[in-house]
């Protein structure tokens, strides 16, 4: 038996091709799709999804999942915005709160799953409900607006988008996306944390027998997911501006779907952050482009659901064939 020849057509490459193909497909359907304004608005909504996707890739690679990222993001955004609005907190502090809140819930998930032994989908389903409730309880069920770009404490908008003197806007957020992608890919491929994340997903027993503190790293994986949901909440506040309690359910599917389409294995052990980001953008392109074919937001929900199942089914069939 020879060792498998490495094809250059890895899932990541295929997804990249799909992304480009989608772009041209929607472009031909409507010239609108190629416009700069369309590009800008697409970038805007992409940031929080991509952050969530990067974060959730880690639990997925361990063979688990984090369903709390969608409602969690809303909860953290509500908390931060609420502090600014109600208690006059400086924006910077509120941003820290959102991020720390995300980290805290992530740690909670980690404890429930890695230390207490609850099944990942169940534990994160519960924290999903809990964060949904918390968000509303804290803000009294009122929508919470984050400061607009024009306001003095709205400086954080320029993290994601800057307006030049000639009125053109530049999607700076894309730079952060790429930066985070590179950093987290580095973490995954070249640090102990990333290495052990893969080991846990591939063969937890072997990892334990090799003397790795599996419990610690397993908890940390969910902390990372929570942290990125926290980061996503900042992007959300900057882009969507007014955060509505009770929203967020279903967003995790787009993030998780993006990761799996991008090559992260639903059963664990494999994944790249490059693929995750490209996959997330495939989902976003679909969301942006489908209206041009007459598929509104609701049809998109159906389609993204089917895309997720399709991606997983393909993954399963691939495994059976290799066996």
């Amino acid at each position, binding site marked *: *038996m020879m*060792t*498998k020849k490495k094809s250059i057509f890895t899932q990541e490459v295929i997804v990249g091709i799909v992304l480009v193909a989608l772009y041209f497909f929607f472009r031909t359907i409507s010239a609108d799709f190629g416009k700069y304004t369309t590009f800008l608005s697409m970038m805007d909504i992409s940031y929080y999804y991509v952050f969530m996707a990067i974060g959730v890739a880690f639990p997925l690679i361990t063979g688990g999942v984090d369903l709390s990222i969608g409602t969690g993001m809303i909860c953290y955004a509500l908390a931060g915005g609420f502090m600014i609005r109600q208690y006059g907190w400086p924006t910077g502090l509120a941003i820290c709160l959102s991020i720390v809140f995300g980290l805290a819930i992530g740690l909670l998930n980690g404890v429930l799953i890695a230390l207490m032994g609850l099944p990942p989908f169940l534990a994160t389903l519960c924290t999903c409900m809990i964060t949904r409730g918390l968000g509303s309880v804290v803000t009294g069920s009122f929508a919470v607006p984050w400061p607009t770009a024009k306001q003095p404490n709205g400086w954080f908008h320029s993290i994601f988008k800057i307006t030049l003197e000639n009125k053109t806007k530049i999607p700076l957020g894309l730079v952060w996306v790429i930066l985070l992608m590179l950093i987290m890919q*580095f973490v995954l491929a*070249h*640090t*102990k944390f990333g*290495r052990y994340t*893969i*080991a846990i*997903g*591939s*063969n937890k*027993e*072997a*990892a334990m*027998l*090799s*003397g*790795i503190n599996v419990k610690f790293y397993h908890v940390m994986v969910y902390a990372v997911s929570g942290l990125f949901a926290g980061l996503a909440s900042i992007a959300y506040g900057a882009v969507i501006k007014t955060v509505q309690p009770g929203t967020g359910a279903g967003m995790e599917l787009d993030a998780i779907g993006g990761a799996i389409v991008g090559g992260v294995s639903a059963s664990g*052990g*494999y994944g790249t952050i490059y693929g995750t980001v490209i996959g997330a953008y495939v989902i976003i392109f679909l969301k942006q482009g489908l209206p041009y074919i007459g598929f509104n937001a609701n049809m998109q929900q159906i389609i993204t659901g089917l895309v997720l199942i399709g991606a997983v089914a393909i993954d399963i069939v691939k495994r059976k064939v290799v066996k």
Partner: protein
Amino acid sequence: MGEVILTMKGIDKSFPGVHALDHVDLELRKGEVHALMGENGAGKSTLMKVLTGIYTKDSGTITFEGKEVEFHNTHEAQEAGIVIVHQELNMVGDLTVAQNIFIGREFKKGIMIDDKKMIAESRKLFDELHIDIDPKAKMSDLTVGKQQMCEIAKAISHKAKVIIFDEPSAALTEKEIEDLFVIIRDLRKQNLGIIYISHRMDEIKVITDRVTVMRDGGYVGTLITEECTKEDIINMMVGRVIYEDPKTHSMVPDDAPVVLKVEHLNAGKMVQDVSFELKKGEILGFSGLMGAGRTETARALFGADPKTGGDIYINGQKVTINSPEDAVKHGIGYLSEDRKRYGIVVQKTITENSTMATMEKFTSGLFINKGAEKKAAEQYIKELATKTPSADELVVNLSGGNQQKVVIAKWLVRNCDILIFDEPTRGIDVGAKNEIYKLMNRLAAEGKSIIMISSEMTEILRMSDRIVVMCEGKKTGEIRIEDATQEAIMDKATRDIN
């Protein structure tokens, strides 16, 4: 061979109901390859588990490098320099070779793992051992043989002084075994002490210096490889006095109809071109060592695992069996080896387990006739003398022997004509064993046909009318009970250069 590096003296270990190790001795010298041989259940694995700290011994001493030691887990053993290369490899498939070798103790450059250094160190390791593996390759892409080489390299990199190989050649090709031997000879030159557990006579002859034989948990003796013959070793492995009379001749007439004919059954490496017949009223014993492929053959026949080729005839008619559902419909029942994992449904009662294969008989439409069910279960509780307060007892609360009886009852309720018993009395006390033997004989006398897979020589000789011997996926022999002896069976069960 140099000085003694490891001595195990008077090792004793018991588990509830079984005396696994009975005052076993073992001596290992530096620069020696020492074979450890014995039948299944002789205690070889248990002895090694005691050595590497997985089990705690009840009594006896272990002396390593002149000091008395007791390890409490594999880490302590590993730190001291005693490493075991398992049969089931403990590798992380999705990581590379180099990453696996240094897992848990990665080289770091600041926060970053120094993969380059790990690759370089792995290369150095492989060069020293004359192994040709690319450290950058993904572990799951390698053949089992190469994965094992990695495990060996990993063991060496832990600065091992004693390496234990547990059936290392089971999954290797001829070429890979040669490579393995080159490495072992190298290690011997470096003055390591090597324990080599294997059942392959030819390998023992080629690579080892001494052979220690165990039998039924006890120490039989140690021979110098050069000075002994295969027969000597076999005699030590099986040389027991059999108190129960072996069956001397079969009551099955020569012209009894053939109820099951299997031709050219193929299912991967473990089932290679296996053909045999089963006559009505016969008990066909399947003998062989662990890894011979008997269970795999049974499972392929039963449709539990996919097969790549082969024809099955029942009562002369060709049948298609692609799932257990098919097999059961054609009247075959299969009692698996691991009853806890594959035999019983733990959350259910004796009654419910007993009728699991025969639900159609106890349902009218959709509804279960619980009265009839219970009566059937009780009938077999009585017949098999299953010890239980009632038929409504949860199976998980019964002892091993009684659980086995429930699984047997399941197939009796189904009234299968062909029964495959896979290690029917494993882990069962003597009293229950005899009851199961009586039952099997009665079934055969009633005209049922039985395939009995067993690793217990006494059982094979006592129960079988004919014996099929398998070795590494192939059928190596067929012996009538009149001509069967332990030696003859063992001869066919162990690999030989012919």
